[in-house]
């Protein structure tokens, strides 16, 4: 089954490079995304056989990330068909081919049980997504692509070094299979393990967008076409997060959980602080969303770092953030198509001109800043209460402070865009909003709303099981 889901996306990608027509390629994209989604759903219903010592297997952590990736990819693929319809005269071979290869590499990330293979898959996600950032071949896009390629490749190279150090620290066993690492973790050489944690955190942290290694993220997310930004933010960052979780598993098994936790908490708080500074007065609304991703990756890191209930909160927040941010980037994509600008100052009165998009933008803003009744509210409060429970009062203070700052600055930017009268000069002719541009983000918004009111038992169980995997 795992081979099927991997082969499917790779085959689809290959097919997209061969097929002659744009329409056929779009069909392949949506079909592969749908079958991928169904496969993912089947993993929830039929538990996979427990293959000991296998390179490819799906545990609860991997399954959670895979579900987020698969669901988001399906929604985005439908949105992308509508989004790129305006460029029907251009070939979308590169777009669809790379998207499906991207899906393949992300799937491989979630099922890798060998840390070396995991590294290969993470690097493959960078390579598959880099061509997607500058599809229009705009001048300013080159800087974003170059930064993304260079910073992520170098960061990931450090993670490879960290992975090797981990193997060196495994005295006598010299293995990189996760199961073996976990069972032998007690006898690890501590200095090498700590060195490995530092390098891996820097490496995978770069890819995840943790400050101060986040510098590629705002450029890449704001220059990429919106469906791509949604995938980068909602799916790719979580894959890198999985890398940090794997290292955390080994650390906890080796009894070095507190070292890992304190490093991660520090990185998380720095990320939230940096995001708070850069969101205030941000003039580009896509950059604002990108910095908000840095903030939320920081929240995930803090949740894992403080431990306890924070683990549950982090996994819950990962799901919430992926869907909310995916929805917001799609809404931003609609705005860009209507107004042809990324400057938030030039966009006013969205609610009057485009009621659906304006409404979605407001809902998305409330959800991303953690207002009730959305799921993000619950998960953020769980992480906060975990920090208080574990007596990290300083962490809790800064966490709240940064959240409040970000709420205020985002409110200033977004509410000004949504309300007011549309400017005559900038407002284009009122045309009907297409269904493909509204339904995908609306669907994601409903999921996030539902998660705030009711967490299905299977998901609740999965979060608990995942927290147990990570707990020491």
């Amino acid at each position: 089954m795992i081979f099927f889901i991997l082969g499917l996306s790779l085959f689809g990608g290959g097919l997209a490079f061969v097929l002659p027509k744009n329409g056929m390629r779009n069909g392949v994209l949506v079909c592969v995304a749908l079958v991928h989604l169904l496969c993912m759903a089947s993993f929830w219903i039929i538990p996979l056989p427990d293959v000991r010592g296998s390179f490819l297997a799906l545990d609860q952590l991997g399954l959670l990330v895979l579900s987020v990736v698969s669901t988001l990819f399906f929604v985005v693929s439908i949105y992308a068909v509508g989004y790129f319809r305006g460029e029907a005269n251009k070939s979308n071979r590169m777009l669809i081919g790379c998207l499906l290869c991207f899906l393949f590499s992300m799937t491989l990330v979630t099922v890798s049980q060998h840390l070396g293979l995991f590294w290969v898959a993470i690097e493959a996600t960078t390579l598959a997504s880099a061509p997607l950032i500058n599809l229009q071949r705009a001048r300013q896009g080159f800087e974003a692509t170059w930064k993304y390629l260079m910073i992520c490749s170098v960061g990931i190279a450090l993670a490879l070094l960290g992975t090797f150090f981990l193997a060196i620290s495994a005295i006598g066993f010299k293995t990189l299979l996760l199961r073996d690492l976990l069972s032998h973790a007690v006898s690890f050489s501590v200095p090498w393990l700590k060195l490995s944690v530092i390098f891996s955190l820097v490496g995978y942290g770069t890819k995840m967008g943790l400050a101060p290694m986040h510098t590629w993220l705002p450029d890449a997310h704001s220059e990429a076409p919106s469906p791509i930004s949604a995938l980068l933010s909602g799916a790719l960052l979580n894959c890198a997060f999985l890398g940090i979780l794997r290292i955390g598993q080994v650390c906890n098994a080796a009894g070095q959980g507190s070292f890992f936790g304190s490093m991660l908490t520090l990185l998380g708080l720095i990320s939230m602080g940096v995001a708070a500074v850069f969101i205030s007065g941000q003039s580009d609304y896509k950059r604002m969303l990108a910095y908000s991703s840095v903030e939320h990756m920081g929240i995930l890191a803090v949740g894992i770092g403080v431990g306890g209930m924070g683990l549950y909160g982090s996994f819950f927040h990962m799901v919430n953030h992926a869907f909310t941010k995916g929805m917001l980037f799609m809404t931003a994509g609609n705005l860009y198509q209507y107004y042809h600008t990324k400057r938030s100052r030039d966009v006013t009165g969205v609610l009057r001109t485009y009621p659906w998009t304006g409404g979605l933008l407001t809902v998305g803003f409330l959800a991303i800043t953690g207002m009730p009744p959305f799921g993000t509210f619950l998960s953020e409060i769980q992480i906060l209460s975990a920090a208080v429970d574990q007596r990290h009062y300083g962490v809790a203070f800064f966490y709240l402070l940064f959240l409040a700052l970000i709420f205020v600055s985002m409110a200033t930017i977004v509410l000004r865009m949504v309300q007011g009268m549309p400017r005559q000069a900038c407002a284009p002719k009122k045309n009907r909003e297409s269904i493909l541009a509204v339904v995908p983000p609306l669907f994601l918004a409903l999921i996030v709303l539902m998660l705030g009111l009711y967490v299905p038992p299977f998901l609740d169980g999965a979060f608990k099981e995942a927290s147990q995997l990570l707990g020491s």
Partner: protein
Amino acid sequence: MLLGLDMALAVIVILAICLLGAVRLGSIIRLFVFQSFVMATIPLMLGGEVHIHKLVIVLGTVVLKVIFIPTMLFWAVRHVSIRRYAPGFFGIGANLLLGGFLVGLSFFLSSGIVLTEKPFSDLLIPSAFSTLFIGFLLLISRTKAITQVVGYLVMENGIFLFALLLLETTPLLVELGIFLDIFVGVFIMSIVINRIQNEFDHTDTSRLTAPEGEKG
């Protein structure tokens, strides 16, 4: 055999320092080729029997880093005059001085962490750290896109030296995956460099920002 190994490791570090001093794009790529070639021979000097795994590593490194990647890099800069200088932020003197400092630091660091079993040569870990650090310095101190790629590759060479400690651990499949990733990575970077060259008429990454008026 051991003397040969030590010599090879020393040559790798010396070549890395030479890279710091080199300013012409052509000579930078050639120095990198030479370094990679020396590095490819190291697995053969480690002693022990020569099995298929080792041979694949040696051949893979030669094909990838001595033949493919340099060809691609030369292709990427074919518009640029080879004589064009690529000086860094700090100037050559400061760069070399920093390089020397980094080599010293690597020896200091490696004396601090104890390896659980004795490595093949005492020089292996310090030279791996040195190559890694110098690659990083090359990466951050130069502004030309091509020197940044070479800096990244020199870093990768340093990591390769660490990987020699784990020759028996990493499965061949994963090893090949790593090779493939580096190959595709440099391939995409070359294409981007080529596009940048066409678009901007230079490859200075510190001047990639489009003028204010053109921003969309």
